[in-house]
């Protein structure tokens, strides 16, 4: 199943979900829950908590299906974004605690694009991975840490022992370059 065919089918399912179609909702869940659970688990880490968040996310999807607009986002992007946001909300609601063991600090420069490469499948994902690989490694690593771990600028700056302003500019510069790269490769 190609990505666009999958998106079209998921969009049709969501349209039925919006009308209260329970069978369509279950199919939608079967098609998407492993991806969303992976995204949530990666951020909140704890399995029971991830299950709670997943449940919350699908209840939200059920209720918000009518607001899904295929012109604005693909259905899986829409659903995964809601999942990520709920997972990050959960993370933020936790009492403050160290995000990583001390010995894991200062590892931003050591991470590279390699962890993603083997799993990358779609055209968009390959282009994004390539754009990331062209960034300064620290910038790319900071973007990855924020996206995949849900760490805040403050937390990551403390972990990397750099001023928050510096870290923010790494990330923002990286994102802007990445976008420029994607736009250029599209043209």
């Amino acid at each position, binding site marked *: 199943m190609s990505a666009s065919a999958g998106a079209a089918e998921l969009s049709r399912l969501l349209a039925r979900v919006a009308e*209260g179609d*329970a069978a369509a*909702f*279950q199919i939608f*869940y079967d098609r998407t*829950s*492993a*991806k969303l*659970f*992976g*995204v949530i*688990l990666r951020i909140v880490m704890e399995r029971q908590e991830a*299950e709670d968040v*997943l*449940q*919350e996310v*699908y*209840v*939200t999807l*059920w*209720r*918000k299906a*009518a*607001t899904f607009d295929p012109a604005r*986002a*693909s259905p899986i*992007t829409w659903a*995964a*974004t*809601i999942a990520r*946001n709920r997972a*990050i*909300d959960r993370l*933020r*609601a936790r009492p403050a605690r160290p995000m990583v063991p001390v010995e894991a600090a200062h590892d931003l420069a050591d991470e590279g694009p390699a962890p*993603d490469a083997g*799993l*990358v499948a*779609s055209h968009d*994902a390959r282009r*994004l991975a390539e754009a990331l690989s062209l960034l300064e490694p620290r910038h790319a690593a900071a*973007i*990855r840490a*924020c*996206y*995949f771990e*849900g760490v*805040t*600028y403050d937390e*990551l700056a403390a972990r990397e022992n750099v001023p928050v302003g510096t870290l923010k*500019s790494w*990330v*923002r*510069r990286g*994102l*802007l*370059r*990445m*976008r420029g790269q*994607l736009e250029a490769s599209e043209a």
Partner: protein
Amino acid sequence: MSAAPTPDNGLSGLTEDEALAMDYALGALGRAERKAAELRLVGDPAFRARVEQWQTLLSPLDEATAPATPPASVWAAIAAETTAPAPKPAAVAAKAAPAAGWWHNLALWRGLGIGAPVAAALAVVMLAQPGAGNDPGGDVVAMAGGPQLRATLAGADGKPLLAAAFDPASGQVRFAPVAQSDAGAGKVPELWVIEGSNPPRSLGIIDISAGTAHSIPRDRLAGVKQGAILAISIEPIGGSPTGTPTGPVIATGALTAA
């Protein structure tokens, strides 16, 4: 790379909104900043479009995350809460919180995900009876002083939930009445005002149950003006313990001249 702050660091031309949009989409904001950004998402379509662009741009990253199959118990719980045929209210109440009533339902509207049928019903109740109950004149009558301001507070899906009228002369906000409002369940609604990209500022715990007027202390009135955004979140009794919204934001709307 120079350790000194660099005036041109590749970020020239980056507007505050664009920076906030990318920070939010990436997920790098702390709790209070996230809440503030989420309130803007509801009330500011241009900002929302920026955020959505970044979300779409970043979303292929999710392909690098290994899928994980959730246990069957999760689907069972979801089905029970959504598609199960006509759940008894008692069963629903027992599952989520030790109380029932209108606010109990609101508390279930996680984050910005608002139950469409409930929202629609409320919109009918509230907008069909503007100023009913304690205000026999229908609409709130402007008092001498500044111009009246109004806001229609809507949920994330754009459906109106509440109509609010603010009278600068008296410092009172009046809400269109809501039937069967019950702030039990250990939760209360709290009103916030947001100016621009500032963090939300509390205007206090409110009672929107019967169209009663809510007086805002004089020292908090400064930001309540045209263009500012009013928002309501659900908080523990006594109000947000942190000074910023901690519970789900159920409705937001911009203040406009009446």
